């Protein structure tokens, strides 16, 4: 009884909160800073560097949106969120935008009343094993021990995969990535499974990285994307199109180096529309004409952000794969700016 009363009050309060702050853009402009929910520490995607500055692939989205909306990529207040607090923080209005490797699923989109505005990283679950094992496919791991973090979608995917292939395995539960790595090195588990991006980072820091391989199987789809609340579609549109501006910029060859002059020097009408030399794309969202120009100038286009944070030149060394432009055989496809 106490519990139902409690949740009833919670629901009523959240409904009120939902009504009260329907104009996120106005709130952000009044506040002068964007409240962006980020990871408390995930290599390459969102973390504080040695100087206390937030860095990473997901953090770049926060900066781009702040640049588009407020004109300054530094006007972001980062709110570190854990797996448990990320969605309640967004629902309660403590943050305007969540950019924290969150997988787009039906229940999160509908039941939790969020909008995943786009997919900024197509991830998948993979397995890492020792090369000397001679395994070339995850289906050869029948009966083996596998390190997995309990309570994640990873764990459920693993169970699904082995069940559907009629195989068995012994899970070795680990609390976090560092423990998984330790157990794996100690030989407590034959394979370690988590998101492929995380596996790549883990493998890169192993003492003998060359003796380990990531198996080619993709056993799940993990589309990560920035998330906003239901109830303010204008704000959702702004985040979505800021992201697509970064994607389109890569496709059209707008980079942080040429973003300031290409708008006037080019004849390509789409580039001119994106950069605000032509048309009034910004005004349709309640922004000024140069919103996308600032967003791109903040960290460069999608490809530059990828290369700087997680790309092949970084120690993490992720290949573009599914995250390449559609013209390169990937899934990054920005709708037309028209």
């Amino acid at each position, binding site marked *: 009884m106490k519990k139902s009363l409690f949740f009833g009050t*919670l629901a009523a*309060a959240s409904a009120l909160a939902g009504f009260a702050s329907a104009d996120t853009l106005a709130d952000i402009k009044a*506040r002068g800073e964007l409240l962006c929910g980020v*990871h408390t*520490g995930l*290599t*390459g995607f969102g973390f504080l560097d040695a100087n206390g500055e937030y860095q990473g692939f997901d953090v770049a989205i926060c900066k781009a949106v702040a640049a588009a909306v407020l004109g300054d990529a530094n006007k972001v207040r980062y*709110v570190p969120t*854990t797996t448990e607090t990320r969605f309640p923080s967004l629902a309660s209005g403590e943050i305007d935008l969540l950019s924290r490797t969150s997988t787009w699923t039906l229940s999160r989109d509908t039941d939790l009343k969020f909008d995943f505005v786009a997919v900024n990283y197509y991830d998948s679950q993979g397995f890492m094993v020792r090369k000397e094992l001679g395994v070339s496919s995850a289906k050869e791991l029948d009966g083996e021990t596998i390190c997995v973090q309990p309570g994640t979608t990873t764990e459920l995917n693993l169970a699904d995969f082995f069940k559907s292939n009629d195989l068995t395995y012994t899970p070795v539960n680990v609390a976090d990535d560092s423990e998984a790595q330790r157990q794996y090195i100690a030989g407590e588990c034959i394979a370690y499974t988590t998101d492929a991006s995380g596996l790549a980072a883990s493998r890169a820091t192993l003492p003998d990285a060359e003796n380990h391989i990531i198996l080619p199987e993709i056993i799940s789809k993990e589309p990560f994307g920035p998330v906003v609340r239901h109830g303010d579609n204008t704000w959702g549109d702004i985040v979505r199109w800021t992201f697509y501006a970064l994607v389109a910029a890569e496709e059209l060859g707008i980079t942080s180096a040429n973003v300031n002059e290409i708008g006037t020097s080019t004849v390509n009408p789409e580039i001119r529309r994106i950069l605000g030399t032509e048309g009034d794309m910004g005004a349709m969202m309640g922004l000024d004409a140069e919103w996308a120009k600032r967003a791109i100038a903040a960290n460069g286009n999608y490809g530059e952000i990828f290369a700087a944070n997680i790309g092949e030149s970084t120690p993490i060394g992720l290949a573009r794969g599914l995250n390449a432009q559609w013209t390169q055989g990937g899934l990054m496809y920005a709708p037309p700016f028209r």
Partner: protein
Amino acid sequence: MAESNQAFVRTAILPPQAPPLTEKGVIKWLRENLFSGWFNTILTLAALWAIYSLIAAALPWWLNGVWNAGSLGECRTIVAERAGPDVTGACWAMVRDRWHQFMFGFYPQDQYWRPTIAFGLLFAAITPVLFSGQKRLQTLMLTGVAAFLAATLWLATVPMLPVALTIILMLALLALAQVRPAALMWFTVIYPALAFFLLWGGSFWGPAVAMAGLLVLLLAYRLLLPLTGVGIAAGAGIGLALLWWAVLDAPIAAGLAWLAPIGLEPVASDRFGGFLLALTIGVTAISFSLPMGILLALGRQSDMVLIKTLSVGFIEFIRGVPLITLLFTASLLLQYFLPPNTNFDLILRVIILVTFFAAAYIAEVIRGGLAALPRGQYEAANALGLDYWSAQRLIIMPQALKIAIPGIVSTFIGLFKDTTLVAFVGLLDPLKGITQIVRADIAWKGIYWEPYIFVGAIFFVICFGMSRYSMYLEQKLKRDHR
């Protein structure tokens, strides 16, 4: 006498001989304590084997520790060069590289002197509480604080003015400890505002005017005390102080800030982390939960139904809920009940709920102390004609608190360690929060034991200190001859 001629009767006493080899020294001790029977012998051998294998496994790791490296990979290379392949070694270079984040979180680096001064003055502020009436110990402690501050401020780059002010303050406190030790308590009273000003910065007048509210309380109490009773005087004082905080505080602070803009660069709460965060939460919660716990314990024993019910309800509710739940309440639920766009600081929310949590436990510990007092003590207090508050202050509480010391200190130690749980609401506690951030850096990713050992060692020093102090206090307050 015939007997004296008998050859077998000894005429001289034998000189004492050394005990047999097995009955003296180390061998005796070993026989009695370690090998007194077949079962104990087996246990001893098993324990020795366990200790040996632990040391054999861990010792090379400790001995091969590396202090100078730029990343975990470099550490591994150095260990491999030094000791050969397949040898493990600790990578303390991580601590060397990131120790400041374990200490201060992401507090601006050029402002590190502020938490350092606040930390030093914390010990100056608790001196009169810890060693009341012990002039020698107080002087010793204050000298220690002065030495600590002198050393750290000399090492750090600090503007001249705060250094000068700190030196003057420490000299004044030392002088005061010689002349009027009781007056040191005033520094303890103003310390919270001073620490708040140092840590969060902003206008000097905010905390100063808020402290003036306490002055209003005291003044009203003093003026009304002869006219009315304790209850009404205290009530009116609290009422006036609340009025001061609610109505006058903000405009006066703003006015003063406009007239004399003194202040420090503001630092937002989300820059706090590491031990700075743990100590901020822990010290605040400890110092506020004790008085609150005493009041709750008294409330629970009260004859007044309303007060008793409220106290019991509060204690049982808070004790019935895990701390994690309260932390999630602080971080997630409270936001729903506040008007949109109010930004009620997360650290403040967490401090309030941690204080409540500790207060409920302290209340029950103190109730144990109260229950252990013989009924005669209460009756004696009544017979002396003391009113309720005087009886509590002079007779009941000193004895009850003395009995409750081990329990109270245990609660405080537990509370301080529990501050690491704030990691679950996204705050950067030293154990999990900062460690996770350090590991997210590709240079230190994969490091496992080192951050835990480093943080654990600091926690041990602090908790062991508290524990030793509690033993000292018990010894000092011992009045019986049990």
